[in-house]
């Protein structure tokens, strides 16, 4: 992975970028930071921010016409822009003991001549003198200041210049007019800033704009001489000091800051939902703000910085990393060399629902889920992924795409124009949903059936190999069926097909049901909210189909304030971050007091487990009532096989018998609490049967002789399962406890 591969995902992210005011400011001062410090009364840090950006803080605070105020986003709320000039003055007034900047660095040999002691020349001279270059300022008048010398407040400007130069060594030659550049032959670089109408030594025509070069290699020009305003002139001098430094090191005049200050970005405003209007603080004295007034006015700054995704998404909020940081860490993690360095993003990478919500609310459509999925795929490719986080789901997918798979046209046919693609979870959760829906589709559309798994578990695990092998399998089945239009019951399946099998025509089951006159869904609740699955975000037809069905049943529908958020299931993040999953599921369930109508088996399961009243739309359509019952892992497997068995019989007249293991005959007695615990730990009854069968056969187990209680374990590649049980009859065992760990250990000999 190259850094650019990761940062490409967040290139357009606005977070951390300068605010609109900074783009308008001639000095590109970090106004946000200045105001943040001022709002806390941290006058010295605020003053330093001002001084470092403007070089002559008193001159600038008095004379700048504050173009930043035209782009202060307070105005979007109908408020007056922040009184920046008054606050700059306050920071100067309230900073005790203002000192000039100086660095402890060794002196440099190179010498620079500055022609003209106006503020443009002076700002360049000061910055270079601070870097310990030998700077000589030539000025034909007998003092500095240039065009400011006649100003009524020149005394204050004079004092500012004197203060800022007080800590550095600069040679001033006043009353010395430079007649030709040949006089300056001994200098390594020359800056001509002789003011409006001043002598340009014949080089004005050749002035190079932004880099301030001329046709003479080591001669630069700027300031009011070249048509800049006073403030622009100071800013040019500051920029040029950096250009000259690079020139003296490399012999080339190259830009030293990139395109970060594109002028147009001063019009890039954010949405400020929820911000409260606040009028400008008025100064009680003609001399300016008191400290408290200044703090209050500075506190009006909205600190414009886009945090939309970080404020809205529980995952981003919890980990608190900014998008640019996440991209850089995703790249860095690929180069980690244990034990010398560690990964920093792993937990976050696997905690994402990959639901697309952040992208949908981002003003620049930055997709953090796509970045994190990309990181998962890179980790798995490199073999550094923690297998345990997705292993269970990949094994389920393997089951659904092998033993649980089946493709067939309707009975007696070889090909079909439509085929039902229910996905792996619907039948597992409720066989009746799949069987009755298929009945409808077979009757109305002569549809075939395609049982399998779309590969979402592999996509979410970053398992490109498994994903693409399965895509190829699907394509083969689809071709064998005569390239039918596929009817989807699951929005996630549809979105996977949209990404990897986009040429296959898709339609949702719910639209087809909604079109059918005979369908009379049963009312489950008088009032409800439709909870759209996150994957249906772009699918307005599917969303409308479900609402039509619900309305047909006479349910009073309420729209959720936020649509298409993930219920918590997405990305299979529960294993990686159980507490975050709980927080998300709870928040979603609590988004409305009304019961939910869902059309995703996983959403249904999440809400049912939260005790939230809900129903799958297919329950309403077919007059069923699944209540809040959630099948166990074992029941889900059995359900899937039952669906396949019935459809194989119906379509091909074949009796399908699932593979039987020796331990299948065991009977387990599992109490409700134990079952719940097993499901949340992703331990299935089949795993326990296998463990117990092996333990009883080999005698390899622990026992408590006081009552015959046993504990045994079973080691699988990624997980070791433990089960506590007691024999309750021939081939029958009562389960008391089941748990697991991922670490392996060696038997002591």
């Amino acid at each position, binding site marked *: 992975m190259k850094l650019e591969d990761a940062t490409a995902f967040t290139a357009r992210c606005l977070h951390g970028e300068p605010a609109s005011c900074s783009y308008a400011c001639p000095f590109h001062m970090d106004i946000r930071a200045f105001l943040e410090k001022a709002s806390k009364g941290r006058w010295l840090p605020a003053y330093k921010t001002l001084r470092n950006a403007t070089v002559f803080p008193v001159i600038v605070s008095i004379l700048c016409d504050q173009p930043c105020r035209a782009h202060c986003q307070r105005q979007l709320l109908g408020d007056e822009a922040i009184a920046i000039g008054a606050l700059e003055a306050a920071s100067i007034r309230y900073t005790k003991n203002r000192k000039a900047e100086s660095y402890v660095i060794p002196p440099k040999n190179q010498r620079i001549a500055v022609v003209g002691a106006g503020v443009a020349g002076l700002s360049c001279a000061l910055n270079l003198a601070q870097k310990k270059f030998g700077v000589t300022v030539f000025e034909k008048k007998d003092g500095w200041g240039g065009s400011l010398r006649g100003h009524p407040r020149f005394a204050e400007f004079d004092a500012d210049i004197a203060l800022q130069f007080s800590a550095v060594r600069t040679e001033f030659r006043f009353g010395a007019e430079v007649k030709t550049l040949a006089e300056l032959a001994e200098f390594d670089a020359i800056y001509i800033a002789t003011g409006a109408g001043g002598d340009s030594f014949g080089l004005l025509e050749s002035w190079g704009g932004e880099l301030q070069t001329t046709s003479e290699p080591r001669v630069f020009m700027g300031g009011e001489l070249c048509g800049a305003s006073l403030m622009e002139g100071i800013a040019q001098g500051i920029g040029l000091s950096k250009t000259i430094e690079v020139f003296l090191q490399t012999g080339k005049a190259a830009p030293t800051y990139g395109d970060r200050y594109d002028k147009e970005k001063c019009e890039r405003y954010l949405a400020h939902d929820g911000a409260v209007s606040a009028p400008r603080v008025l100064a009680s004295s003609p001399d300016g703000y008191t400290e408290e007034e200044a703090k209050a006015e500075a506190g009006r700054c909205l600190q414009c910085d886009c945090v939309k995704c970080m404020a809205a998404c529980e995952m981003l909020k919890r980990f608190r990393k900014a998008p640019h940081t996440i991209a850089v860490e995703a790249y860095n993690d690929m180069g980690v060399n244990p034990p010398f360095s560690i990964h920093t993003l792993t937990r976050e990478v696997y905690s994402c629902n990959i639901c697309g919500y952040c992208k949908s609310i981002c003003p620049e459509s930055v997709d953090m889920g796509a970045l994190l999925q990309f990181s998962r795929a890179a980790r798995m490719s490199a073999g550094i992924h923690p297998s345990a986080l997705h292993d269970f789901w990949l094994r389920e997918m393997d089951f659904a795409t092998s033993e649980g798979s089946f493709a067939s046209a309707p009975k007696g046919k070889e090909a079909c124009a439509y085929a039902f693609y229910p996905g792996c979870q619907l039948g597992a959760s409720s066989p009746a949903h799949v069987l009755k829906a298929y009945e409808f589709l077979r009757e109305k559309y002569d549809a075939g059936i395609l049982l399998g798994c779309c590969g979402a578990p592999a996509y979410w695990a970053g398992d490109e190999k498994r994903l693409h092998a399965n895509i190829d399998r699907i394509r083969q089945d689809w071709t064998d069926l005569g390239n039918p239009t596929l009817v989807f019951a699951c929005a996630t399946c549809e979105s996977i097909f949209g990404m990897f099998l986009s040429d296959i025509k898709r339609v949702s089951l719910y639209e087809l049901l909604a079109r059918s006159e005979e369908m009379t869904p049963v009312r489950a609740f008088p009032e409800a909210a439709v909870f759209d699955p996150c994957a249906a975000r772009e699918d307005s037809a599917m969303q409308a189909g479900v609402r039509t069905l619900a309305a047909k049943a006479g349910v009073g529908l309420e729209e959720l304030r936020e649509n298409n958020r993930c219920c918590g299931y997405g990305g299979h993040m529960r294993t990686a971050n159980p507490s975050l999953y709980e927080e998300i599921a709870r928040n979603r369930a609590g988004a409305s007091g009304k019961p939910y109508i869902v059309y995703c088996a996983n959403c249904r399961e999440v809400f049912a487990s939260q005790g939230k009243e809900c129903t799958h739309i297919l329950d309403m359509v077919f007059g069923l009532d699944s209540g809040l019952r959630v099948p166990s892992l074992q029941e889900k497997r059995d359900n899937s096989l039952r669906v396949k068995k019935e459809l194989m019989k119906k379509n091909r007249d074949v009796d399908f018998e699932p593979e039987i293991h020796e331990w299948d005959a065991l009977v387990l007695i599992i109490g409700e609490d134990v079952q719940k615990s097993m499901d949340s730990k992703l331990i299935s009854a089949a795993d326990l049967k296998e463990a117990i069968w092996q333990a009883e056969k080999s005698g390899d187990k*622990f026992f*408590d002789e006081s009552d015959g209680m046993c*504990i045994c374990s079973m080691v699988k590649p990624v997980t070791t399962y433990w089960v506590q049980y007691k024999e309750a009859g021939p081939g029958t065992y009562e389960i008391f406890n089941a748990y697991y760990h991922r670490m392996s250990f060696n038997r002591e000999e």
Partner: protein
Amino acid sequence: MNAEERTWKCAKCKKELVIRKTVFSYLGHTVAHEARTCPGCGKVFISQDLAEGRMAEVEEQLEDK
């Protein structure tokens, strides 16, 4: 009686378990920790408290590293 209070014995060797330092590994890292083992055949017993407590903690840290 909960599992922690019970006296577990190895079913094969019929011996009571003793505490021994055991080496665990996960994701290429090794960690040593005390665990109950059979003095006869060396079989290691991991209680639920250990598995879902200290082991789960360390597993999470190692996954993050």
